[in-house]
């Protein structure tokens, strides 16, 4: 089972929520401006990669820092800390023709959810 949480920290836990940010030094694999593609995975286990973005192209706009990877953590297979990025997807990329031409959708994605996009 996961480690016990110190009783002294419970008040802060209630007030701020359980952040999965970790103070671990990990080299980022992407930077702002990089063209990326969300991977197409369909695990029967936990993932926080939404169906509608799988296989779609986007652009990294910000590095959010290092966080625990939910997919492995949910199975107690390790925290696998990695960078999370804000990635911008054009509405037309996600929803096709007829969606707002100027609309964008921003998703916070873990590094393992992305690969470099080939032209």
């Amino acid at each position, binding site marked *: 089972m996961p480690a*016990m949480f110190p009783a002294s920290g419970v008040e802060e*836990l209630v007030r701020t929520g*359980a952040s999965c940010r970790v103070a671990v030094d990990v080299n980022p694999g992407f930077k702002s401006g990089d063209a990326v593609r969300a991977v197409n995975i369909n*695990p029967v286990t*936990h993932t926080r990669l939404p169906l509608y973005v799988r296989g779609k192209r986007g652009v990294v706009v910000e590095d959010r820092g290092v966080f625990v990877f939910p997919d492995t*953590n*949910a199975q*107690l297979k390790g925290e696998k800390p990695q960078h999370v990025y804000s990635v911008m997807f054009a509405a037309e990329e996600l929803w096709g023709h007829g969606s707002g031409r100027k609309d964008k959708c921003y998703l916070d994605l873990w590094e393992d959810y992305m690969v470099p996009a080939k032209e």
Partner: protein
Amino acid sequence: MNGIHDLGGRHGMGPINIEPIEPVFHAEWERRIFGMFILAFAGGHFNIDQFRHGVEQMAPAEYLSSDYYEHWLHALELCCKANGSLTDDEIQSRMKELARGDA
């Protein structure tokens, strides 16, 4: 998991009912489930991602027709049963006690 929880882009779900003055809890039972979650989480019974996966494993029809904190209760029971700290028999016997009015 490609479950019912992943609703992004689905049509026909109706409007989002935003309450102008939203209370922290709508009922006492919601407050109690929040407290149970905090205690079990702080006690190391599960991590937050195991808990989220617990919600995802609800039967789709039940997920869509139940409240937010009912989702939490489902995950709480599932995670605590999975780690052996709670049994179905214990849940059933406690429900019978409550039905008899034994607080």
